[in-house]
């Protein structure tokens, strides 16, 4: 896709590529290749390395410790990180909470929280969904009750990713039940170590623990835990979800994984001789996915070009979420077909150099059922596209 980048941008790409390769420890790259759920330590280590270079919060405005890069430069940086197999940063702090706080938070909140998000010293989780409030998020029942000097939060959050190692939660709670559901919500910052917070693991179908149920039992937070204005939580949450959806397209990881899958196919023996990559059916599917990936990349570049002119992510976020999530699943579908029988068992066979790579694909394939569900299901996204874009 070189023709969509200027010479300056290409030079920028060479510059960040060399820097990332120099900064990234080999063992972190290795772990990123092997697994989908990285440990806090691994994510934090890379976060710190990037922060020392001033690149951890690369997409934030320079005034808040970001790089001041253009959206296209950020796109290039992220694609280079993925290509180098750099660990993904925990999405909640740097992608979701950071922008919410520097946009809507108080000066005190910015001073307190932005530095530790940038450095990776503190991890965040997102406490929005509840057992009975998923797609219908506005119906959530966790409440925040005003008391002297603060708030008392009571309720239960579901599917809280990284809740078991997060320090802080950005928590959506009901502060007013007299108005329509969306209008009575507020956003709070909650200390995960506060009395009354208990975290229970939920194992997902890939056999891993990345999500939790979080019980909030009379958890006291101070007055300045409220983000922005009272009862404006829905607006802030929607803002945050827009950022989440662009990020959820995961275009750079998809590109990188696709490259690795092609390499795996090129060294996996085919039944009856030759390699899987040379089977005509596989070649066609690879070419077809290449086209879809290009469509996604070009779409994101278009959105970013618009953002350069100051537009916030709107309904386009829904488009890339839908395309990107489906593509992630198509890529792992292909991986399963490439691996055949070797993709349906978990083996610890250390003598097989590809065992780890295959295991990673199998786990990804199972966990990837979620990408069309979380960050707003694809059905909900399509309704948004139909209503807000097409006016149906």
């Amino acid at each position, binding site marked *: 896709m070189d023709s969509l980048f200027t010479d300056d941008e290409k030079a920028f790409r060479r510059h960040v590529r060399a820097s990332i390769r120099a900064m990234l420890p080999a063992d972190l790259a290795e772990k990123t290749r092997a697994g989908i759920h990285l440990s806090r330590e691994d994510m934090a280590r890379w976060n710190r390395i990037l922060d020392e270079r001033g690149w951890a919060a690369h997409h934030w405005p320079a005034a808040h410790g970001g790089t001041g890069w253009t959206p296209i430069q950020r796109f290039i940086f992220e694609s280079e990180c993925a290509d180098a197999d750099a660990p993904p940063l925990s999405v909640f702090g740097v992608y979701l909470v950071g922008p919410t706080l520097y946009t809507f938070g108080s000066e005190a909140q910015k001073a307190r929280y932005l530095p530790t998000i940038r450095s990776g010293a503190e991890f965040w989780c997102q406490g929005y969904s509840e057992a009975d409030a998923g797609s219908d998020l506005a119906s959530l029942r966790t409440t925040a009750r005003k008391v002297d000097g603060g708030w008392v939060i009571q309720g239960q959050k579901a599917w809280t990713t990284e809740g078991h190692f997060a320090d802080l939660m950005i928590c959506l709670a009901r502060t007013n039940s007299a108005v329509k559901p969306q209008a009575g919500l507020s956003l709070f910052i909650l200390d995960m170590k506060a009395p009354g917070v208990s975290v229970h693991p939920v194992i997902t179908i890939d056999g891993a623990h990345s999500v939790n149920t979080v019980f909030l039992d009379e958890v006291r937070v101070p007055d300045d835990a409220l983000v922005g204005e009272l009862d404006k939580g829905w607006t802030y949450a929607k803002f945050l979800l827009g950022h989440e959806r662009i990020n959820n397209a995961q275009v750079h990881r998809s590109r990188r994984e696709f490259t690795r899958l092609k390499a795996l196919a090129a060294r996996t023996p*085919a039944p009856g001789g030759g390699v899987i990559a040379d089977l005509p059916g596989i070649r066609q599917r690879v070419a077809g996915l290449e086209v879809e990936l290009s469509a996604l990349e070009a779409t994101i570049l278009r959105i970013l070009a618009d953002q350069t002119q100051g537009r916030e992510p709107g309904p386009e976020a829904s488009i890339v979420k839908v395309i990107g999530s489906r593509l992630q*699943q198509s890529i792992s579908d292909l991986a399963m077909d490439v691996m055949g029988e*070797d993709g349906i068992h978990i*083996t610890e066979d250390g003598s097989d150099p590809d065992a780890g790579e295959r295991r990673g694909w199998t786990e990804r394939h199972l966990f990837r059922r979620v990408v069309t*569900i979380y960050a707003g299901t694809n059905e909900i996204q399509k309704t948004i596209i139909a209503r807000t874009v097409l006016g149906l």
Partner: protein
Amino acid sequence: MRRSDETLAEDRLLRDSARRFLEERHPWKEPAARRAAGDPAATWRELAELGWFAMAVPEELGGLGADAHRCLLILQEAGRVMLDAPVMTTLLIAPRLAAGSDSPALASLLDGAAAGDVRFALVTGSDRGAPLRVAAGRLDGTSALAVGAAEATHWLVVADGALSCLDAAATPALRQELRLIDGRAASVLRFDGVPVPDEALVATGDAAARLAAEAADLAIAGTVADALGALAAGIDRTTVYLRERRQFGQPLASFQAVQHLMADSYCEMEGLASLLLWLGAALDGDPVERRRAAAAAKIFLGRQGLAAVSRCIQVTGGMGMAEEYPIGHVFKRLQTAAALFGTADHHLHHLAAG
């Protein structure tokens, strides 16, 4: 020959009684809970008492002489509860291969199998490793994933040159024990010049090649039947969930987007059921048609079957991602089935080549 599962009252009775039994005695449980609670030997005896391992045995060999269709109905029921017991080879494959062979090697074990004392596992060659080969009375090569080989008393080994039935305890094979993503156990077996006694030979030469082709198609039929059962149960369970769960003040079932996803899944499940019905009839017929029907069913499973179950997860939402909820296990059961005995790509490749 039947063109519908509903044609014969006897079929329906058999299916319904199997379903009642399995739902009562072996309802679906999370694999870890199942492994902790289950007693595989006791389960196997129970299934033998039901007559499962005598049903496909021809009457002249002392069995019930059920046709393939009826055996596949039972395997679908086993799939519905995602039964761990690897029954396919003993129930469907061994009796039919015995009927097609002149040697007593396999036939002499069928009484023991019917009684629950003999348990067979099918051992086929791997696409990728050294092929299985019997030459000068010795077996060499590496197997594909052999489901249930660790629990079996006898291995039905499909190799170039011979089909043999080996006493598992007496066969020196290098075993790699694996856990499949659907929770079942499988082994990869490596044979290095293992002696194959004459008494173990089920067939050699052309007869062995003929039975090997039949074994491959039977294995696909059994695997698809199991997967179809799991998918049907998954769709049933999902529709119940959709009626119960509410969002935006109404049941999920009331959203047209959800309805359409489930309707697609249903169409695909029915297509798979139809192909299995054809395959069931073709198993009793001409080998060329049988091969085409087996390939068709396997391809459809690997494409439409997997799409159907993925949508069930999609409409279940986050709950569909939870290990403690069954639908993810249906997905894993189908994903496993899709990879065993040749992927959809593999079979498409051969179909396209003519």
